[in-house]
């Protein structure tokens, strides 16, 4: 508590901070020890215990992975869905810097922070799932590259994007540690990283869809389409905005701050635009490929398809009108549903709609689940620590 107050004074007394706009980012301060952080800590400790077993005794000791299902939730949830949830930074940065909508700038840093965690954890999650994890550094050594591989594209793009994002986010740390000279120099080059930070996720988010194309007939026709890269890219962008809605609502409730409805309402409209584009491509593709009858079979896949589609369609009803978009409850719900829909699209494609041959089963083991829960706890805890200690969230005009 005392430390927080000190840092705030330091920033206030810094001459270069005198001219900051009223909505410039500032640390929230406050205690780091709360019921939420404690629960997160316990969950992370459990995850570390499971991972210790995994690294000493191998994947078979803690997971239900098998030859038919070499990818479980550590890949599909922690990496593929986790990185899609982490598209907030990319989506908002695209809005601000590519479409030049500067008014959304206050949303960039918090969104980027969530992305930073999402992607860094996705990168770490890959290492947990690698059988020979000690070879992970091969991706940085050109002599090991196979440029014809989709996996290579995904791996290189994600590794580069994680580095790029840390650089994009570094002004927050530089401000906090008072390195204004360095920040000034970095600002001159930052546009390169901002551009990379937009291109790289577009490349690998679409390539994650290409992974399904490569798997061919093992994927249920409802999800096996050559358009999968486009579907994954569109949903990644849509989910990016949805995550910002979700995160803003949760942060404002958790920190008892005023909700930035004036920014979220128009952003939700942009999001709906991408959503409509996605739904047109998705349904059009199913009709053209003649895969729609599969949705009317009595099967788990068909049920999951309808739940997924409902999650994507419901936001159109929930926040279709301008008046409804002003209601934070509806914005939050729409954001939640879109995140769920995007997650289901990925889960359905990679696990539920994946059939590799007779006799193979997969359902995550308890330790596997505990690691995934732990990963999300790291994200929440990191978000709390950084927003309380570093200038990320916009300063509350009313409190000053």
């Amino acid at each position, binding site marked *: 508590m005392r430390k927080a107050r000190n840092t705030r004074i330091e920033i206030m007394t810094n001459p270069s901070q005198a001219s900051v706009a009223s909505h410039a980012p500032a640390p929230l301060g406050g205690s780091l020890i709360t019921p939420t952080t404690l629960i997160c800590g316990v969950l992370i400790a459990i995850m570390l215990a499971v991972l210790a077993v995994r690294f000493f005794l191998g994947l*078979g000791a803690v997971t*239900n*992975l*098998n*030859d*038919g*299902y070499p990818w479980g939730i550590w890949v599909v949830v922690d990496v593929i869905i986790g990185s899609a949830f982490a598209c907030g930074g990319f989506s908002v940065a695209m809005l601000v810097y590519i479409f030049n909508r500067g008014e959304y700038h206050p949303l960039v840093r918090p969104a980027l922070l969530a992305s930073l965690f999402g992607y860094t954890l996705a990168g770490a999650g890959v290492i947990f799932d690698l059988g020979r994890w000690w070879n992970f550094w091969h991706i940085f050594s050109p002599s090991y590259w196979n440029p014809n591989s989709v996996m290579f594209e995904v791996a290189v793009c994600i590794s580069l994007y994680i580095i790029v994002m840390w650089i994009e986010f570094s002004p927050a740390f530089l401000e906090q540690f008072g390195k204004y000279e360095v920040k000034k120099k970095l600002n001159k080059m930052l546009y390169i990283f901002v551009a990379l930070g937009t291109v790289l996720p577009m490349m690998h988010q679409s390539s994650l869809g290409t992974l399904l194309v490569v798997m061919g007939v093992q994927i249920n026709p409802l999800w096996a389409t050559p358009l999968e890269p486009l579907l994954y890219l569109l949903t990644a962008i849509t989910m990016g905005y949805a995550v910002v809605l979700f995160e803003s*609502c*949760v942060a404002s*409730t958790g920190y008892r701050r005023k*909700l930035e409805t004036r920014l979220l309402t128009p952003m939700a409209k942009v999001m709906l635009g991408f959503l409509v584009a996605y739904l047109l491509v998705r349904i059009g593709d199913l009709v053209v490929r003649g895969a729609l009858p599969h949705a009317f079979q009595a099967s788990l896949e068909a049920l999951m398809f309808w739940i997924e589609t409902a999650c994507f369609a419901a936001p159109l009803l929930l926040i279709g009108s301008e008046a409804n978009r*002003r*209601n*934070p*409850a*509806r914005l*939050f*719900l729409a954001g*939640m549903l879109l995140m769920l829909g995007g997650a289901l699209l990925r889960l359905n494609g990679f696990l539920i709609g994946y059939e590799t041959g007779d*006799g*193979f*089963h*997969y*359902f*995550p*083991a*308890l330790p*596997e*689940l*505990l690691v995934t*829960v732990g990963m999300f706890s790291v994200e929440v805890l990191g978000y709390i620590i950084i927003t309380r200690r570093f200038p990320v969230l916009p300063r509350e005009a009313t409190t000053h």
Partner: protein
Amino acid sequence: MERNQVFFDENRESLNQLEKRLDLGRREFLQFCSTVAATMGLPAGAEAAIAKAVETAKRPSVIWLHFQECTGCSESLLRAEHPTLEKLILDVISLDYHETLMAAAGHQAEAARKDAMKANKGKYILVVEGAIPVKDDGIYCKIGGKKAINLVKECAADAAAVIAIGSCASWGGMPSTDPNPTGASSVAEVLGKPVVTIPGCPPNPYNFLATVVHFLTFGKFPEVDKLGRPKFAYGRLIHENCERRAHFDAGRFAMEFGDAGHRQGYCLYKLGCKGPETYANCSAIGFGDAGENNWPVGCGHPCIGCSEKGVGFTKPIHQVAKMLNVTPPLQYPRIVEEQGKAASFASAAAVAAIAGAAAGAAVMLTRNLGLSHAAQEAKKADSDSAGKEKV
């Protein structure tokens, strides 16, 4: 088809004569020729050349000497199950001197040897069975008053070719086992020059026969390795073509006689099988014309490496072989393919709990956001109406 007609002309006079001479069906005869050609790995057409050579060539004179041995090599040739093999052997070669087979005895026998050597000087084949003792001036083996060492030198002097049959003649064999009290030596050691060797205890009769037939057909011996062994028969390790090789590669070993692995025909490596360090074609052509699997390993006994110097009669039978190529690891990965399990109660409950907690939190958060929004709207409406009243 055309080539077969040319080579296997059914009305060929020499074939008819052979049929009468041996009281042997031509089909059986041609089968024999094909078997010999296949044993040597000769190209298609060789069987026809062999047939022609056997039918028409003058049978070479063979002098067969026995020294320190058990006559197992001769037995294996004669006891071959193929009904007419012994007839063929005796037809292919003119066995002018063979101590255990010839009817003659004593001075008569020795005279026959001398006559044959004189009549076929420079053309006869000398076959040596058994090791030759050289210690104490070679006094440990005498035949007709002559020491073995002198006899072999005398017979080899005018021979067209020398073949050492069996491990004893090839490299000393069992009699040369430490401490080798008689100084048992191989033919090559005694003669001081390389000879064709057919090691084995006993060797497969087809390896000997094929070597002789090759000489008969082509006028020279087949290609040999540096130990004088025909490459067609001794070019590969027994291990390489072993029918139990898949068990070796998968790490399935019989650990003792009669255990579960032994009963299921697992690899005998850990029982001391010397297949991995013994060069011979036992695993490829079997033994004794009784069909495949009829050889030591096929019967469930580890190979003792009888044909290999330094292995057979030297290493203990159950000592684990030295691997000449790949040594098996101590541990193997499991080869059971896991197919995964259905959801356990714990994991299903955990998923349900996470989903429930998330849904509950979402509902509460939505409700709070909705309530505060409603309150805000109401306040706004209030202030709006208040403003209107003021106006």
